[in-house]
């Protein structure tokens, strides 16, 4: 594996310009002071209740995501490039979704194989020919980016269903500003706090035609036991919209209403954080009590906007991911600005053979998995784990893709033995409304806290950092 790109230091001893002020500050700050602030930050997170639940973890239903107080810093120039690439990618994602559920030009052009769409469990035949308001499918995208060298940002995953983590981006900044005012005074950090306003504006802009001029937006959550519940209530609060559960909504004459103390009130846009499967027991899983019976018929009648649209999972499927560069070229006629990780599709016999021969060097992921569950990290796995995975792969090759283990860039991070480099990734949040696409400068930086580890997922013990884009 190649040596990881160090975001702070140039090999040979010099600092990258964006980190110079931070380095100076770190030199002046005694380690005890840093540790004290670290503890203070943890206390703040716990008191505010910024927690998440880990499924299958019985001893603690609510956990804190570890927060690292050393910010990750990017220059404005780097960000400008990234921003351009993200907007391009999300535009293509939206066009791809519109096409898949309508004309299917891309299949006819044989860029993406048919069966990857039609035999995919996240493809929603219910959406065939269905008009979605303003043709926007992915209103909120969380694109996972890793950096492998000075020039290259690589997309690891396109989260086009219900990406989470934006509350951490906002709270991390709040807490950093509280704890390190002097550090902020020495930098020009682009603000992220307008995210909720941008999100609300985007959501209101995609209201259906039958909505009033003051559309009502609500956020649909599965409830307090969901792992991202904190984020749901945080966002509803910042947006000033109702946080609803399925039982708060009712469909009448193909319109959606919420039950209020003053009777029923029409809802026009639902920012839903409930997966497709659970949205409407009449259309999807009949045993689900999280959704709203009849929601899909109101959707079909054009009386409600769902953000993100139903069926977007097909765009963030890891098997489709490998076609993204072609998808960008096909719809936009442009070269993709952001690269993909080279990906072997295990469904293709040639690729599978290569993967089986090189398991100990590859990362193998479930095509439909998320959150770092069910993946194999070859270099870090034992022989027995690799053999067990080999059997799984042979049994169901179409369920997996494989990628080389990337040398994710590292950032200085507080550890038990002082500051040390740890691997990071970045999830910026791309908002698409009826007229424009916006990204607040920054995103959620996740950090693998264990030495050498590449796993940044919070469910697997990763932490987060504040992400600073310098305004130059």
């Amino acid at each position, binding site marked *: 594996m190649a040596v990881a790109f160090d975001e702070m230091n140039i090999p040979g001893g010099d600092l990258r310009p964006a980190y110079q002020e931070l380095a100076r500050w770190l030199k002046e700050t005694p380690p005890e002071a840093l540790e004290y602030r670290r503890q203070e930050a943890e206390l703040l997170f716990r008191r505010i209740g910024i927690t998440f639940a880990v499924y299958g973890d019985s001893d603690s239903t609510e956990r804190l995501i570890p927060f690292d107080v050393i910010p990750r810093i990017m220059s404005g120039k780097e960000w400008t490039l990234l921003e351009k690439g993200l907007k391009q990618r999300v535009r293509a994602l939206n066009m791809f979704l519109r096409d898949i559920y309508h004309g299917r030009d891309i299949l006819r052009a044989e860029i993406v194989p048919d069966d990857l769409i039609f035999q995919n469990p996240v493809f929603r035949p219910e959406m065939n020919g269905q008009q979605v308001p303003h043709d926007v499918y992915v209103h909120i995208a969380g694109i996972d980016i890793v950096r492998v060298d000075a020039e290259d940002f690589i997309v690891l995953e396109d989260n086009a269903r219900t990406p989470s983590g934006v509350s951490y981006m906002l709270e991390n900044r709040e807490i950093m500003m509280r704890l390190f005012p002097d550090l902020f005074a020495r930098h020009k950090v682009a603000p992220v706090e307008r995210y909720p306003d941008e999100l609300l504006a985007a959501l209101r802009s995609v209201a259906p035609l039958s909505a009033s001029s003051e559309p009502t937006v609500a956020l649909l959550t599965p*409830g307090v036991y969901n792992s991202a519940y904190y984020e749901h209530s945080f966002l509803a*609060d910042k947006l000033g919209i109702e*946080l609803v559960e399925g039982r708060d909504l009712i469909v009448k004459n193909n319109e959606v209403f919420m039950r209020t103390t003053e009777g029923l009130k029409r809802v026009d846009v639902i920012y839903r954080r409930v997966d497709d499967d659970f949205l409407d027991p009449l259309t999807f899983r009949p045993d689900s009590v999280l959704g709203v019976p009849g929601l899909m018929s109101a959707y079909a009648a054009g009386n409600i906007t769902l953000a993100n649209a139903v069926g977007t999972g097909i765009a963030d499927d890891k098997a489709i991911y490998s076609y993204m560069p072609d998808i960008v070229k096909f719809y936009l006629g442009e070269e993709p600005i952001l690269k993909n990780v080279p990906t072997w599709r295990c469904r293709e016999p040639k690729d599978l053979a290569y993967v089986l021969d090189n398991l100990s060097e590859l990362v193998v992921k479930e095509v439909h998995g998320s959150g770092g569950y069910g993946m194999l990290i070859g270099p870090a796995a034992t022989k027995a784990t690799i053999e067990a995975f080999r059997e799984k792969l042979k049994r169901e090759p179409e369920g997996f893709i494989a990628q080389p283990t990337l040398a994710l860039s590292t950032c200085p991070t507080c550890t038990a033995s002082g500051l040390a480099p740890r691997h990071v990734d970045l999830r910026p949040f791309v908002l698409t409304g009826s007229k424009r696409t916006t990204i607040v400068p920054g995103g959620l930086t996740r950090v693998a806290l264990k030495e050498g580890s590449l796993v940044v997922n919070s469910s697997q013990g990763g932490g987060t950092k504040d992400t600073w884009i310098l305004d130059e």
Partner: protein
Amino acid sequence: MLSRTAENLYWLARYVERAEYLARTIDATLRVTALPAAYIGKTNEWDSALLTAGVAGSFYQQYEEANENNVVDYLSFSANNPSSIRNCIEAARLNSRSVRTALTSEMWDTINSAWIELQAVWSKGTSTREDLAKFLRFVQETSLRFDGSAYRTMLRNDAYWFSRMGVHLERADNTARILDVKYHVLLPEEEHVGGPLDFYQWSSILRSVSALTAYHWVYRETLKPWLIADLLILNDTLPRSLASCYGNLVRNLDQIGVAYGRQGPAQRHARGIRNRLEHSNMNDIFQHGVHEFIQEFIADNSRLGEIITKQYLI
């Protein structure tokens, strides 16, 4: 506002109020039982603590007899008692979590911090009297902080009014319950037999509702049962009296009625109860029977809860 939000706010306020009342009840009971036997007679104060908390039935399914250890444990820490202080705080926090958007950050902070702090207490329980006293004080302070933050930070809109309704409905129920359990010491004037035994019973009633000092300010007399009854039932200057709770309930319901442009059965029912309280005097109540009067009140009060639920919360 979402019906479910209003419901959660209403119950959240009730649970916090109930936790405080339980802490006061235990506190007052501890004081009486610490007295020499000659002052308290043969009555089992722990029994009456269970009765005023309304959990005697479920308690005796698990225990043979009521004593300090098992009653304190049952009322404070028991996970099996749905209205233990622990379960009240747990439920209050769960409700808070599901309506965080309707709470101010101060209110959430109060509940969440209390919940975090109390985690440690209920895993261990309290081993000494000092620990117990500290715990009871903490619960009462949590309620004060919660109430104070609601009062000082909430917008005066339906969220506030629904939460206040929870407070007053629960408070009225608590005051009525303690009167009901102790009504036998609140004898009519003529039959009064004063003695140290009664005196401490009476003062424990007043302590349970935080009204001992208030009594002296209002009546400037030694403790007399009919005046205690008058204070707790009819005197609307005492925040925990039935009359005061109903003054507030009627006001909150009217505010909601005005905001929504519509009145309903909840407003009418609450006004009916308040009018009855306004037009009663202690003489009539003693004539009618204190016990009967309180029983009817408790039934009326819980009926209001049902009507509010039907009109607004589902």
